[in-house]
């Protein structure tokens, strides 16, 4: 019964979404207040219905209802409860319902937190989000219904892929989808503004926090995906430039460009049409990513079970949404104003150069991801494009970008002087180079690439310190304390600094691990030891352990350094009887300056096992840096100029004073 109710809720949601798509935007065009007023309640009702349907699917999983086809293919009675919930988004249909839940959730959030938006603007925005809901609801209901029943329900399900039975599965897809789908808000703001003709600095100020929040989720989602791959897959890597990874990275690059472009548009009113185009492109790449993962067009370890009919539907939806919005852009953008004036050397141009570099990087990733398809479609053969290509092409684009991160924040709006900037930054530049050379020499790795990587990280920190020092310097007229001057720095600026610092931490981690990690494959009998980078690993044997739905061979490896015990690691090899799969669970000792990573290979005769040992210096700085970036974004998004209550209080104060 419950699946049917859930299914029905989705049909109801489609009805509401259709109303939301049509009535408010027509009301905005005709000045009908009552039509526009439908937007908020419709967005709320749409979300409630989809959330209810989602709840029904969760109930079917938790209750082991194998008469539902989707539950039978993705779950099993021996699956622990929290993984039964995660299994809801383990396959194509359920993950599409999760997408829809996020989409209607964001629309609800916009409806809820937009009291400051004029009614016609809000009406148009919510209607656009309604169009997106209609598309996804139709896709779900017509081609990918998670509530389809099986005529002869099996006694037990096929089980969730063991690779996905992991905490990462509980968090990574929801976080990622929140980011992907969150970009639909910036998209809707942009399309609504093109339709209504109200592209101005106010529009940019409204759009910015929504974009930043979506960007935060996307950053965390991608970082989690990378971290999960690292500890789960057992190959010690954390980024493979796989098509699906690229599909999440491209919107991130464009969203980063968008955040910076919105800064120009908000402060100076310039480059409005470029910002609008970026907002459209960011979400378009989210949609493209959805297509790539589910259509079977590219080969990927992440790809869902493919069906050309579904692929065609999504492509049609893509062409409609992206084509229409780009056509609207082509029609309306030429009449958008120029904004305020600025010179060749100014903060504006540095930010735009940032955009050019980020878009070139995104273009490179898109080119590499789609090139095999391009050649195949033209009958020119079949090639593969993998990490060697992306690493070669991506890093040189990043270097000038990182140089700009140091210069941009110190440049003045409208007009900056290069000699003055050079003078202010020369010690930072020198310090970065010297520090990089020093660290390289101390480590004994004087490679050009790793030294450059270190220099980039140190440059960001040094330039940041320069900016901070300027802001904390007494400004002469009024005597203030350092702390007071520190508090004067707007939260958005602090957010920027933290985010940029996070990037420096990320680059440092990547450089140190890529140039300094050591891997060793050895045959170990009980009592055997191996030494890697000062750590001694001693093999203590393997025992058999039962798990909830698997049987494990668990190894014990004691780690010491200079004779002092560091930790004991327990890598496992798990056998899942239902699917017959064998999973390798690496054991990791995460540390501030290094990870110790051990995994079991195959057993040999006489209790000897093949053991793989890694020592990875500073690898956790990679994800730590991403989290810092996300935190910086959080600080920026919660700056007082976006907080409604603060604005109201200020307005009230202003009234009192007047």
């Amino acid at each position: 019964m419950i699946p049917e109710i859930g299914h029905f809720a989705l049909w109801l949601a489609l009805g509401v979404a259709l109303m939301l798509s049509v009535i408010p935007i027509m009301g905005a065009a005709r000045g009908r207040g009552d039509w526009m007023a439908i937007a908020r309640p419709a967005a709320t009702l749409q979300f409630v219905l989809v959330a209810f349907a989602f709840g029904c699917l969760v109930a079917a999983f938790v209750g082991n209802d194998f008469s539902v086809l989707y539950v039978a293919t993705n779950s099993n009675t021996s699956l622990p409860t929290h993984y039964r919930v995660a299994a809801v988004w383990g396959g194509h249909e359920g993950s599409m319902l999760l997408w829809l839940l996020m989409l209607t959730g964001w629309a609800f959030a916009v409806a809820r937190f937009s009291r400051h938006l004029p009614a016609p603007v809000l009406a148009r925005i919510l209607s656009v989000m309604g169009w997106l809901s209609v598309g996804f609801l139709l896709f779900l209901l017509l081609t990918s219904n998670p509530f389809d029943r099986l005529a002869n329900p099996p006694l037990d399900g096929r089980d969730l892929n063991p690779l996905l039975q992991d905490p990462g599965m509980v968090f990574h897809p929801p976080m990622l989808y929140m980011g992907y789908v969150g970009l639909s808000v910036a998209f809707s703001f942009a399309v609504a503004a093109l339709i209504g003709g109200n592209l101005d600095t106010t529009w940019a100020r409204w759009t910015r926090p929504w974009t930043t929040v979506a960007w935060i989720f996307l950053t965390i989602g991608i970082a989690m995906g990378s971290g999960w791959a690292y500890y789960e897959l057992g190959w010690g890597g954390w980024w493979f430039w796989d098509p699906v990874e690229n599909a999440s990275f491209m919107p991130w690059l464009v969203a980063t460009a968008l955040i910076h472009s919105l800064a120009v548009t908000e402060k100076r009113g310039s480059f409005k049409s470029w910002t609008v185009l970026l907002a459209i492109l960011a979400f378009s790449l989210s949609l493209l990513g959805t297509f790539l993962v589910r259509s079977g067009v590219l080969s990927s370890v992440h790809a869902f079970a493919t069906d050309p009919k579904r692929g065609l539907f999504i492509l049609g939806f893509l062409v409609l949404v992206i084509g229409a919005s780009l056509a609207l852009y082509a029609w309306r953008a030429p009449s958008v104003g120029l904004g305020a004036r600025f010179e060749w050397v100014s903060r504006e141009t540095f930010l735009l150069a940032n955009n050019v570099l980020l878009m070139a990087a995104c273009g490179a990733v898109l080119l590499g991801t789609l090139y095999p398809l391009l050649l195949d479609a033209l009958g020119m053969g079949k090639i593969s494009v993998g990490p060697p290509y992306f690493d070669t092409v991506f890093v040189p684009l990043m270097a000038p970008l990182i140089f700009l991160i140091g210069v941009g924040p110190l440049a003045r709006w409208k007009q900056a002087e290069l000699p003055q900037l050079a003078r202010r930054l020369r010690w930072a530049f020198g310090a970065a180079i010297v520090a990089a050379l020093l660290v390289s020499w101390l480590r004994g790795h004087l490679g050009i690439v790793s030294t450059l990587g270190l220099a980039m990280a140190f440059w960001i920190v040094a330039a940041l310190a320069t900016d901070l020092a300027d802001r904390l310097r007494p400004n002469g007229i009024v005597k203030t304390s350092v702390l007071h001057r520190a508090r004067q720095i707007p939260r958005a600026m602090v957010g920027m600094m933290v985010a940029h610092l996070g990037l420096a931490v990320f680059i440092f981690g990547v450089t140190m691990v890529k140039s300094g990690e050591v891997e060793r494959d050895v045959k170990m009998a009980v009592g055997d030891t191996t030494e890697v980078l000062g750590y001694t690993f001693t093999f203590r044997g393997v025992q058999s352990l039962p798990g909830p739905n698997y049987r494990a061979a668990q190894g014990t490896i004691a780690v010491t350094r200079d004779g002092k015990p560091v930790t004991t690691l327990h890598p496992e090899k798990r056998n899942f009887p239902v699917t017959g799969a064998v999973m390798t669970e690496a054991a990791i000792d995460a540390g501030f300056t290094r990870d110790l990573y051990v995994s079991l290979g195959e057993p040999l005769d006489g209790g000897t096992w093949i053991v793989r040992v890694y020592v990875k210096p500073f690898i956790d700085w990679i994800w730590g840096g991403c989290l810092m970036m996300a935190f910086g974004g959080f600080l920026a998004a919660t700056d007082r100029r976006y907080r409604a209550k603060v604005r109201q209080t200020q307005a009230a104060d202003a009234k009192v004073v007047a």
Partner: protein
Amino acid sequence: MHKFLLVLLAVCCLARAALANEAAPLAADPVLEARMTRITAELRCLVCQNQTIADSNADLAVDLRRQVREMLRKGDDDAKIIQYMTDRYGDFVLYRPPVKATTMLLWFGPALMLLFGFGALAVVMRRRARAAANQFEPDDPALFADPHQS
């Protein structure tokens, strides 16, 4: 008899202690192994297709790693090994696409995009420089009053 057994036991214990020491590397020749891994890390496993031949546990990957080891022992260089692979499996097996006529756009594309981007920026800046003052919006005094221009 007892003495003999005691000596035998002692010898066994000593041998055991001597054996429980530095673990032997899995590879017979670690230097060769490192070279093999470096080469196969850029080759695509054709069975699973989303892993390198260095990492894959598929039978074919195991066989091809063995093949590369043999070729390295024979003295073949990287180019010869890559040729061996592409002769049998085509360019698909290379994760680093070869630079040929069909991949020119791939390898030079990013640089072209960068040039196009900066070129477009320059064109737009020049166009703005030529525009009359009244086409621009006025500056926000609040922004320029702040010495740090946040």
